[in-house]
């Protein structure tokens, strides 16, 4: 079976079946991940659709660096930000859920040396966590994070500084 990078090569040559295969492999996790950042299913569906339209048209420009999954996510989150900016109504972010009881996976998943970071992260207020998630975990710029969260860029910066300070205090 062709790996993702080979699929991108076929897509660049106009192979529609290769795009269908790529979609079947990546649409599910992208949908779940987008849905965690926006509760409006119409926005999620449109972002997903535009991601693969962009992948179809941009496959020729993919340089083969890094993971295809990361590349697709980079497109998807930015498409969603663009869509949210066009909406007159505010699209609320999915709320921060109640922490569930820590399970056995946690010890593997959040490896021991990061356990303190995880605890500290979970103690941050939802506002601060959203900024950390957008800038650090999703790799967005300050401007993109501001558009996603629909807050001014200055607020992103001050919240990030505050989050950094709290995390540093928690870890010292």
């Amino acid at each position, binding site marked *: 079976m062709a790996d993702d990078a080979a699929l991108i090569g076929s897509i660049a040559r106009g192979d529609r079946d290769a795009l*269908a295969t790529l979609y079947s492999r990546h649409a*599910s*996790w992208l949908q779940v991940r987008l849905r965690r950042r926006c509760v409006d299913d119409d926005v999620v569906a449109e972002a*997903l659709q535009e991601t693969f339209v962009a992948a179809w048209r941009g496959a020729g420009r993919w340089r083969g660096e890094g993971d295809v*999954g990361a590349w697709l*996510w980079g497109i998807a989150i930015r498409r969603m930000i663009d869509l949210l900016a066009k909406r007159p109504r505010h699209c609320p972010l999915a709320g921060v*859920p109640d922490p569930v009881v820590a399970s056995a996976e946690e010890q593997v*998943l959040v490896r021991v040396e990061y356990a303190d970071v995880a605890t500290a992260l979970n103690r941050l207020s939802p506002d601060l966590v959203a900024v950390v998630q957008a800038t650090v975990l999703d790799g967005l710029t300050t401007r993109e994070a501001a558009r996603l969260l629909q807050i001014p860029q200055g607020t992103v910066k001050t919240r990030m500084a505050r989050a950094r300070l709290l995390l540093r205090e928690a870890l010292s």
Partner: protein
Amino acid sequence: MTVWHADDALLAAYAGGGLDQARAASVEQHLTGCASCRAAIAPHADAALIARAWAGTVDRLDRPRTSPFERLLIALGLSPSAARLATGASAARRAWVAGCVLVAGFAIAAREMDGPMALWFLTVAPLAPLTGVALAYGPGVFSMHEVVAAAPYPRLRLVLLRCLPVLPMTVLLLVVGGLVLPGTAGAALWLLPGLALAALGLVAERLVGVQTAIGGLAALWMGGVASARITTGSVLGAFSPTVQLLSSAIVLGAVCLALVGARRTRSFW
């Protein structure tokens, strides 16, 4: 490669929004690089939404790409389907655009020669809006006929939409005319007769059919220019103040008729 993989319960909790931030972030980082966990999360995704988005993707890819002019119309507030109707390119329309560019190029070339050469531009340019309007009609004229026949648009709106591409070409000819003829008044000489001919074309088409209407009006115009040449000794006679006044009356009348028609069929607009 990671030897650890997220189990089904963890993926279900993540997809259901039931994980705290730190663990959700960990799952996301893992998913970005792990094909087997990406496959394992599929049962927890929204299958209906994913099928809908795929149908949308295929639909977008099958649709021809939007031209810059189409995007401009959408940006100006036209609905995407209306913009498509307005710009749907056919071989005839492309030939017309090429013809307008040729007229403009001819005018620039004529600028370097004697004045009478530039007057030929004045003679030909008024026919450009008329022939552009002709492309708003008929199966023989443009290939989108089937689409248009099935579209839920009232005829007047449809024709006006199809006439929209005439505007940029009119502007092009106006600009080039400004280069060719001294003074803006000279450049705009052909504009009113041109628009009047186009308006007459819209009316005459209903009475005698599109081909006869366009051909007849073009022949009438060329005849008028020729007789002006003979009687007054100059092509400019066809652009006399009387002709300009008559042309503005025709254009104004057509605009009023269109507005009244629009008010009557407001529910369609």
